[in-house]
Every structure is written in structure tokens, then in C-alpha cells.
């Protein structure tokens, strides 16, 4: 069995960072990632179960880590060496127990909710955030029974998805995959859960005008979440800025009302908001802007096209950026992050809260999000896979994933 392992190796991180200037993911061959023989990690406890990965996606945060572009904020929230891969669908060869306490039979396919909060860490009592279902906000990510790690795929004790060897999944992380979903559908559940959380926590009101900056995986799944989970109760209008033709097609098919190239997004928002323009900023604008890129430019753009007292939601992972916050102060804007997932208040009055993951499983099926998986690579071709993922939009792709089912050759 093989796994891609990331070790703390500063010269290799430096080399990868230099190489990333040629393109994200281009430094895989000289960076800190290595393909090594692997075996399953030790079970941290009785409530942990081996999950043999079938497919494991390559996330933008993975690429940022490999490129050495991740914020140093996360330094104490990872433990080396670790096997990346937190977008995972796998099989429980020995069975297990899911997040609701249900027994899962051997051979059950499952996805993991990768946040390593209080419960996987055997911390009692759990923190306030975990107690209220907002596991993504857990403050104990560096404590308890596990090495530090904000998620599976960043922790030395659990293994990760980029491996043909099983990873270890805590029962609180496990969600069985419905039979009707393909493996491609299932590997989209984790990023979709992020989008669900972003869309449902944004406080969108009836008739709101929504702008989505960026149409990679997060942008497209955010569009799907808005269309299926928010629009029915709010009638919101969704305008998307998408750089590449395939992204524009997908955004439209996933429910965007209007899709334009990025350089047209501000104008499209201005038209719909009936806004004037001062110093390159809209006087009115979108009620909510989802920044699904996370760069200085995208945050600046988002701040320039949101209405006074509007909300900018950072869905894409930012790093250290330089942004002029004068408009945020002057226009009383809200700049808010949307990280991972948790427990979502239902938009339906009176309905019970649901896990972001549960909603994402339904959404993946309803919106057929498995179609966003554009390419599968075996682990051995990880350099190609990461380079492909790093240039996905330009190459007409959305989600690139590792195929751990058939180690020989590319399956798609």
C-alpha cells in the first residue's frame, strides 16, 4: 500500500513555493510530498474505524499547503508527517458506527466529516461549539488524545485520503453514502458541505441580490446550495463571475441567474442593483457577496460590489493578504468567514437543525454534483494530478481526485 506523505522539510517547502510561481501544484515533485509505502495508522480508540479510501479529492487548501502559500496561522494546527486528503469517500471493510450511532455493516461506503473536534479527541466535556453542533469552530484542535490537526488529512495520527491504506475515522465523523450515489458523487459531499454551510449561514433575506466571485469547486457548489436551499424561501437572485467557459456553463446549469466573466461581474451587479459608481465602488450593490477565491484581489472586489451594511462571506481560504478596509469601515460592511460545516438552522420554519453533511448528501444527489469530478488519477501520477488540479479551470476541469480503487492507470 502507498500513501502520499507530507513531511516538515523547510528546504522542500521553499522549493515548492518557488515552483508554484509557475503554477499551483507544479512543485509536487520537488516539494515536501513523497509517495511512500504505507499502512493503516493505529486505532486511536474503540470508537475509531478503518476506512479504505476509494476516491479522495484535491482541495484548494491542499494545493495551498503544497505550494507553501498557507497562512502561518495553521502551523500549530497540523502535525507532521501527515497524509493529506480530507475529501474522502471510502469503504468500511470491517464495518463501523456512524455519527448518529447507527451500526454500519462491513463493506459500507462512507464519507468523513473531517474536522477533528472534541469528540474524536476524547475531550470531555466537549467545548461549547462542539456541544452546539458547530464542530468546525472547535477550539481544541491541538489538544486531547490526538496530535494537533484541524482535520483528517492534516493530522499525523489519523492518516488521510491520499492513500491506498485505510485512514482512521471516528464514529462522529462517519456518514454512510446512499446506494444511489456514485463514488464521484460521494467525493463531492465534503466540499458541498462547505458550500451549504456558507450559503445557509449568510443571512440571506427575501429578494436579496447575491454575487458569487469565482466558479471553481467552491463557487459552483455554493451556486448549487443557493439555488436548492436558499432560493426556494428567499427568491434571491444569483450573479456569478466565472473565468472559464466550462465554469460558466456549469454555473448556469446549477442555477445561477446570470453568469459573466470576472471582469464583468461588478457591472452585472451594478445593473441589477441600480447603483451608481464612486471611485470604482458601487454605491449600492449586492446584499451578499460570496468570495470563493480568497485572494486580496477577490476580497477587494467583493468589498467594492456589496451594498452598505452588506455581507461578504469568505468561502475560499484566504492567507495573509493586503486589503484596503476603508470601505468596510465606512460602509459598515460585514466580512465574515465560512469555514467547514456544522449544524445548520433549517430555512423551513419549525424544521429541526441538520448537519451540513446531511444536507450536502441530499444536494449532491439533487444537483448531480458528481459531474463536477473532471479527472481521476492514481497515486503514482500525483505530480500530474496536482498540476491538473492547480490549473483546473483553465483546462476545463473542476474537481480532480485520486482514484484509490484501481492503483494501475488512470481510470477516467
Amino acid at each position, binding site marked *: 500500500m502507498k500513501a502520499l506523505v507530507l513531511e516538515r522539510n523547510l528546504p522542500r517547502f521553499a522549493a515548492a513555493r518557488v515552483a508554484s510561481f509557475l503554477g499551483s501544484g507544479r512543485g509536487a515533485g520537488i516539494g515536501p510530498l513523497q509517495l511512500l509505502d504505507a499502512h493503516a495508522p493505529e486505532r486511536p480508540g474503540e470508537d475509531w474505524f478503518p476506512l479504505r479510501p476509494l476516491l479522495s479529492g484535491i482541495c484548494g487548501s491542499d494545493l495551498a499547503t503544497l505550494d507553501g502559500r498557507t497562512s502561518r496561522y495553521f502551523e500549530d494546527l497540523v502535525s507532521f508527517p501527515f497524509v493529506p486528503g480530507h475529501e474522502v469517500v471510502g469503504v468500511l471493510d470491517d464495518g463501523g458506527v456512524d455519527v448518529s450511532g447507527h451500526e454500519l455493516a462491513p463493506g459500507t461506503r462512507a464519507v468523513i466529516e473531517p474536522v477533528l473536534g472534541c469528540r474524536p479527541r476524547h475531550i470531555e466535556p466537549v467545548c461549547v461549539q462542539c456541544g452546539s453542533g458547530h464542530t468546525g469552530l472547535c477550539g481544541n484542535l491541538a489538544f486531547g488524545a490526538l496530535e494537533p490537526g484541524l482535520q483528517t488529512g492534516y493530522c499525523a495520527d489519523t492518516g488521510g485520503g491520499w492513500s491506498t491504506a485505510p485512514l482512521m475515522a471516528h464514529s462522529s465523523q462517519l456518514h454512510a453514502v446512499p446506494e444511489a450515489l456514485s463514488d464521484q458523487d460521494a467525493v463531492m459531499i465534503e466540499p458541498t458541505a462547505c458550500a451549504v454551510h456558507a450559503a445557509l449561514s449568510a443571512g440571506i433575506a427575501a429578494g436579496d441580490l447575491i454575487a458569487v466571485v469565482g466558479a471553481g469547486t467552491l463557487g459552483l457548489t455554493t451556486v448549487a446550495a443557493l439555488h436548492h436551499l436558499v432560493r426556494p424561501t428567499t427568491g434571491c437572485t444569483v450573479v456569478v463571475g466565472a473565468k472559464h467557459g466550462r465554469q460558466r456553463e456549469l454555473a448556469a446549469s446549477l442555477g445561477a441567474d446570470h453568469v*459573466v466573466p470576472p471582469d*464583468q461581474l461588478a457591472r452585472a451587479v*451594478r*445593473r441589477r442593483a*441600480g*447603483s*451608481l*459608481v464612486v471611485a470604482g465602488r458601487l454605491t449600492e450593490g449586492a446584499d451578499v457577496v460570496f468570495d470563493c477565491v480568497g485572494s486580496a484581489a477577490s476580497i477587494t472586489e467583493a468589498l467594492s460590489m456589496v451594498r452598505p451594511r452588506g455581507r461578504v462571506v469568505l468561502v475560499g481560504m484566504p492567507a495573509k493578504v493586503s486589503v484596503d478596509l476603508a470601505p468596510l469601515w465606512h460602509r459598515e460592511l460585514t466580512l465574515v468567514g465560512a469555514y467547514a460545516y456544522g449544524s445548520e438552522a433549517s430555512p423551513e420554519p419549525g424544521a429541526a437543525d441538520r448537519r451540513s453533511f446531511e444536507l450536502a448528501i441530499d444536494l449532491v444527489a439533487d444537483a448531480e454534483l458528481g459531474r463536477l469530478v473532471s479527472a481521476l488519477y492514481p497515486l503514482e501520477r500525483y505530480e500530474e494530478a496536482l498540476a491538473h488540479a492547480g490549473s483546473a479551470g483553465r483546462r476545463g476541469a473542476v474537481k480532480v481526485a485520486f482514484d484509490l480503487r484501481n492503483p494501475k492507470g488512470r481510470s477516467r
Partner: protein
Amino acid sequence: MSPRPGFVLDVDSSTPPTLFWHGERFSLETLPEGSRVIYAPEPIDPLRDPQAAIRHALTHPEGDRDPLPALLFSGMKLTIAFDDISLPLPPMERPDIRQLVIEQVLDLAAEAGVDDVELIVALALHRRMTEPELRHALGDRIYDAFAPNGLLTQHDAEDPDNLVFLGATDQGEEVEINKRGAESDLLVYVNINLVAMDGGHKSVATGLASYRSLRHHHNPETMRRSKSFMDQHKSELHSSNWRMGRLIRDAGVKVFQIESTLNNDTFPGAFHFLQKREWEWKAKDRLGFVAAAAALDRVPARHARKIFHSVRAPHRMTSVQAGEVEAVHALTTAHVWEQQGVVVEGQTDILTMGLPYISPYNVNSILNPILVACLGLGYFFNLYRGKPLVREGGVLIMTHPTPWEFNPVHHPSYIDFFEEVLSETTDPTVISERYEEGFATDPWYIHLYRTGHAYHGVHPFYMWYWCAHALQHLGAVIIVGGDAKAVHRLGFRAASTLADALEMARDVVGTSPTLTHLHAPPILMADVQ
């Protein structure tokens, strides 16, 4: 030697290649034998003494109108409105006709002791003119006398305080025009008639109107029923303007209309070959073509644009008439036809035209893709009387680079129209119903129109409606040498060469089509028999 009339050349094996405009460049194309090329008449002789002719026109008015001196009196409110930057094309060498006419009107007003005089640019929903443009049109003396005192203004179709509603025609067309003009004791309108569409009641009823009024005739249905809008008697656009003009008259607005016509001496020395017939080119013309073509090929488009927009046409006045609107305009139209009319026998399967760098709406600016469409399908296609030059279901081939490029100062709403509207539909009726009101009432466009130099938000719609008759009539439109993405956004087909375009056209009109080339500018009007 008197100027020769227009001419239809039958292309044979001895015919030299034909000059095609291609925006800020041009090329020589070999047309198939049997093709026809329509050439404009040569420039007719100008008036020997324009100043005397103007004086005569003002003192010997046409129709039921007193001489201008008799209409002027001390204590009166006098407003002089005049055509904007869209006329003439290219802008003419100094002195501009507007300057010559307005100077004489002002002299008469001064003699009569008129103190309350204001000048208004009748720009309707066009962009406001800049100071240099106004100085060019009026001369420095008039500009310096009026502008600093706020007595030279530009019509603001979005200023509710300076618009007045005069009523509705029997067809329900609302008439709302400039208040200062309407409430003056006399409204003098100074027109330059470049094409037969200009002038008449359209001067005041359109030039000084608001969107509320203009929408009644600037719409797809009116344009489809204007065959063509260069032929007043077959033009619903004009019928509507005439109804409005008569309502304005009946509401008590006293208009003294002054119209003038130009000869088609369009290009000065270095570019004179552009208005000559190719087989008559002398060594100097051939050298001029080679030098100009080579130079323009070597400079970036923006520099070529700058060169051409600095061209001042040597147009000369061929007539001036003043008085009652309809009587004046009848004479004006006859003069336009005298200069531009060419009799053409029968229609053609394929009509080709080389589109130049300029249209009424991009003086000192970019001929963006919407204006390319308007120039070809709106203006040039409609340069006919009787029947269109091209048969129903025929093909129009235009040569122009059609860059995906806009002037954001002059044409901000065009950018959004191109990106947002034409990406959804090119159907003028659908566009009108679905999008027009939103653009027309967009506060940002209104702000830019009122305070900057932007065409009104609704203006790109009007440009598209201008194409409605041609879009309905034609089987296909092909642009040669255009930006393919921009051409496709317009709903047209793109071809690399004229030969390719002709092959594509044969798929539409058959394998042995007739072909006619409209050799313009200089402007001509085809009288299709």
C-alpha cells in the same frame, strides 16, 4: 465641367479591384465578373456665396412664415437650437455651417434688440459635446459670448425642470420637449442635412425631446415599418415625428427652421482617392492609396483611429432654406437627392459594403460592435428609396474589424448591452420588451448622460432597433475580417476573406448569385427601380 451623376458599374475582366473600407483601414478587392458597383455622384457645385445665401434664406422664408427679421423684437425670448456632433460626417472644415448660420441669426437678433437669447445643442439622448467640439461647431466668438454666461446649454432629456409636456398625438404619442425651447417666443432650429433622414419635424420632435417622447418612434415596430427611414414618405419614423411636429406647432411653439445641405466632397487631399472611381485613379491616387494603406497597417488601431478622427471634411454648402418646417424640408430633401441619388435597376442577391471608421455616434470615439451593426444594417442598408438594394432573404456582407472594444466614457451602457443583452437574445422585440426600461431608467447611465459625455442608457437599444428592418429582411449577415467573438455576439457570421464570405453567402442565396457593392462613403442614396 459639371459634376457627373452617380454611376452603376458592371464589373468585367478589365475592371480594376474595388476599394473596400475596413474601419480605419481599407483594401482592394476583386469582385466577380457581372457584379455591380454603385458610385455616388461627384460633388455638386457649392453655393458661391454661402453668407449671401443664408441671408437670403432668412429674409425670404419658405411656406407660411414671416422673414426672420419680422419675427424678432425687443424683449422677446429667443432660443436657437442646433444639430449636435453627429452631423456632418466627418466633421467639416472650419467654418462649420452652424457657425455661419447662427452668426447671421444673432446679428439679426442684435439688430432687433433681442437680449434674451440662448443656444441649445439638440442632442436628444446623444452624448454632450465637449468644449472643443462646440467651439468647432459654433466658432470661438459665439462660444465665448454664450458659454461662460450659461447661455449655451446642451439639451438634458432627464431634467424634469426643463421639460414640458405638450400633449399626445391622435396616435397616443406623448410629446415632451425642452421647456426653454417650447416657451420661447421663437425657436430657431439650425440643421445640417447630411442624409435624407435628417431634418424636418424630426429636428425639434426628436432633437429636443425626452425618452418619454422618443420611445414612441424609436422602437422595433416603427423601424420595421420604415422602408426606408431615409424615405420620408415610406417611413413610420417620420410619420410619427411629423405628427409630433404638428402637435408642437399647434401647441403654439413657433419654429423657424433653417436647413442646409452639403455636397459629398468628403475627404481632403491625402485621402482624396477614397472618393474617386478606381479605374480613374491616377498615379497620385495609387501612390496615395499604397502609402496610406501601408502606413495604417503599421500603426496600432488606436493611432489609426486618431488619424482618421482628425480628418476634417471639405464639405461645402449646396443649399440653405429657412421658414416653415415642412416647406423647408421638402426643398432640403430635393437637394439631398440631387447630390446623393443614384438610379439602380433591380435588387441583388448579395450586397457588399465596406464600413468606414465613423458613424453619427462615434465621432472622436470607437466604432464599437453595436455601432458597426447599426452603420451597416441601420444606415447603409437603408440608403434606398423604393426597394432595398438586396432582395428579401439575400445576404449582406460587410467588411470591418469589429473589435470587442468600447469607449467607456461615451458608451457605458453599450458595454452592458453587449455583455448582458446580446448574450441572451438579438431579437429587437424581445430586447425591447425585456430590457429597455431597465436601461432607460438606470440611474448610473442617467448620471453619466447628464454630467459626463455618455450616450443615454437606452441609446444602444435604439442602435439595435435601427437594424430591425434589415434583420427582418435579410437571410444572413456576414462580417469579413471582424473579431469572430464579437461578430457572433451580434448574431452574424464571421469570414476571414471576401472570397470566404461569398462562399458562405452562396449557401443562402444559391450558387449563381447577383452581387452589388455599395461604394460608400461618400454617401449615396439608391433609387431602386
